[in-house]
């Protein structure tokens, strides 16, 4: 199997415009998440809220590699994936407010972002439950002769579930075009990877199912993007699954109720220095591809978008209670 050690493109020259686009996408996610945390303390957003701050490069790099017709399955930590995939910040924000203008009509909330236009199949909050879904979506494509890719995001914690192993086996056995993307942030809630896995080299697990695989530095958006493009090409061309491990880190608590007893502040600080946004900004500045003014302009553009999203959510409406039992069965008419 072509399991590679984490590679990085830090030396390579990059296209200025494209680099700005990637930075813009990551900033959108970062500021969106920061605003969400703020709105949570104001009790505008309720329920469980899981932020992906620190993991932006994975969402952005991977979604860059996908075509509009491809499908995406994600977890409850999915705002970044959803934004990078092209769901509007307004629709996601309104969803977290519980308003009917939200992408899931306020029925799902933060953990259940869905969108048919971008083929975004959740927002799944049972750990591991998205993987078999992705296998089925790919199976349908295969049966109907479509050359689409189904991209499935999941955390390192999901690797311990039976559904991970069942899905890997089925995808390999049936030769299905599933792009498995493990967002390995080293923890499942408070359980460190080495406390959950007898073998922590996750690529070897894919290899044991005869699935092509590689691991990349998930803090470097250019590296993730390059690896994802290569992987998606293989999946589309060969009609075979691929497993990409993105080594990343969440800077914030697991959810809003986590006192973080299981890791040290020093560890978090160490990772923050390698944050995907600071890393890219530093490199672009060094290569003369980004000025302070340009960065400020990007920030302002993002700030406006977030402001609009919040206004959209604030102005949204509550679904009438009489509609409570809608969408339990399909409405035919």
């Amino acid at each position, binding site marked *: 199997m072509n399991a590679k050690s984490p590679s990085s493109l830090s030396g390579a020259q990059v296209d200025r415009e494209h680099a700005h686009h990637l930075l813009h996408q990551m900033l959108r996610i970062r500021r969106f998440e920061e605003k969400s945390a703020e709105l949570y303390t104001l009790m505008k957003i*309720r329920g469980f809220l899981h932020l992906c701050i620190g993991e932006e490069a994975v969402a952005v790099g991977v979604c860059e590699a996908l075509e509009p017709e491809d499908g995406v399955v994600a977890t409850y930590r999915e705002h970044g994936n959803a934004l990078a995939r092209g769901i509007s910040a307004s629709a996601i924000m309104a969803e977290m407010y519980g308003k009917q203008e939200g992408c899931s009509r306020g029925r799902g909330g933060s953990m259940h972002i869905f969108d048919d236009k971008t083929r975004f199949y959740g927002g799944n*909050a049972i750990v591991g439950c998205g993987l078999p879904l992705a296998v089925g979506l790919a199976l349908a494509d295969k049966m109907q002769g479509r050359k689409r890719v189904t991209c499935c995001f999941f955390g390192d914690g999901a690797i311990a579930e039976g559904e991970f192993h069942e899905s890997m086996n089925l995808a390999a056995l049936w030769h299905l075009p599933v792009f498995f993307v493990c967002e390995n942030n080293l923890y499942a809630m*408070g359980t460190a990877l080495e406390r959950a896995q007898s073998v922590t080299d996750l690529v070897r697990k894919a290899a044991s199912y005869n699935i092509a695989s590689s691991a990349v530095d998930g803090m470097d958006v250019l590296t993730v993007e390059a690896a994802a493009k290569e992987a998606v090409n293989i999946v589309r061309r060969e009609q075979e699954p691929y497993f990409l491990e993105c080594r990343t880190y969440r800077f914030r608590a697991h959810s809003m109720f986590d006192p973080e007893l299981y890791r040290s502040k020093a560890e978090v600080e160490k990772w923050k220095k390698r944050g995907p946004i600071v890393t890219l900004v530093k490199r672009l500045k060094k290569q003369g591809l980004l000025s302070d003014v340009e960065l400020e302009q990007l920030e302002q553009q993002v700030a406006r978008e977030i402001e609009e999203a919040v206004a959209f959510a604030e102005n949204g409406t509550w679904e009438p209670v009489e509609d*409570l039992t809608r969408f339990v069965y399909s409405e035919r008419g």
Partner: protein
Amino acid sequence: MSKNEMIQITYREAVREAIREALRRDERVFLLGEDVGRYGGCFAVSKGLLEEFGPERIIDTPLSESGFTGAGIGAALGGMRPIVEIMTVNFSLLAADQIINNAATFLHMSGGCFNVPLVIRMSTGGGKQLAAQHSHSLEGWYAHIPGIKVLTPATLEDARGMLWSALEDPDPVLIFEHQSLLNMEGQLLANAGAVDIDRAQIRRPGSDLSVITYGASLFKALEAAEILAGEGIEVEVIDLRALRPLDDATFLTSIASTHRALIVDEGWRSGGISAEICARIMEGAFYELDAPVERICGAEVPMPYAKHLEEAAMPQVEAIVTTAKRMVRSNG
């Protein structure tokens, strides 16, 4: 410590004290589940226990509900007394095979050779805007299964006292702790201990109507009863405490004096525990009734996230009050 000394305690602390007592009293007892140790428990129930009892008895597991629940069953068969913690009832579905096909059947399949002295604790219920994969009330569904016992502690006494009795039971016992009760605070006897796990209890006596309920709905029923008392309607509130075995004698006796019954259940109406209770009333107290039995249940919808919809999907005090009034005044 005087005999009647009271302490101020939360439901969460009461459960924690119960686990601590069990770990101290019986060296075969250990706690097994996701994030019970270093994280302190997903709802902070087991916080501090790892430090006190060590990693051999407070065991963090990987995310593998079927695997560690099955391991709990095996350890119980092997002479230990495991307490398996599953974060929420929704995730217990990943362990349903082990619970239903193994824990519940082993004694019978083996012709009485192998009993499974296992306790599984999990949270249940809505009210926290956690939407459709974290809020359901499936305890009534587990009550369908012969071979297991299903407990629904609502009060501090039961949160503190049911665990030990469950551990003493030779067979698998499931304990459902309602998410919205964890922060409930009140007075408890400092020396509170084990309680029975097979009898319903009358939490408020009354003569006009029997309200049969359990779990977090108990407090909604009690609140409604208080309001109704102000209007001259005396409601008897029955806390089932256990859904299997179901103590029908207590509610049938109550109905024999009130002649009316209202069931309040956060679970869904169709095929739920409320339907079973209703059927038992038909079988055992039909001629006592002055009015049809009524039910207030969870709406037949996966739990919505938005607060106003979630509230509308769950039994509420107002509905209990209106229904009770209608039932008492319409007839008899």
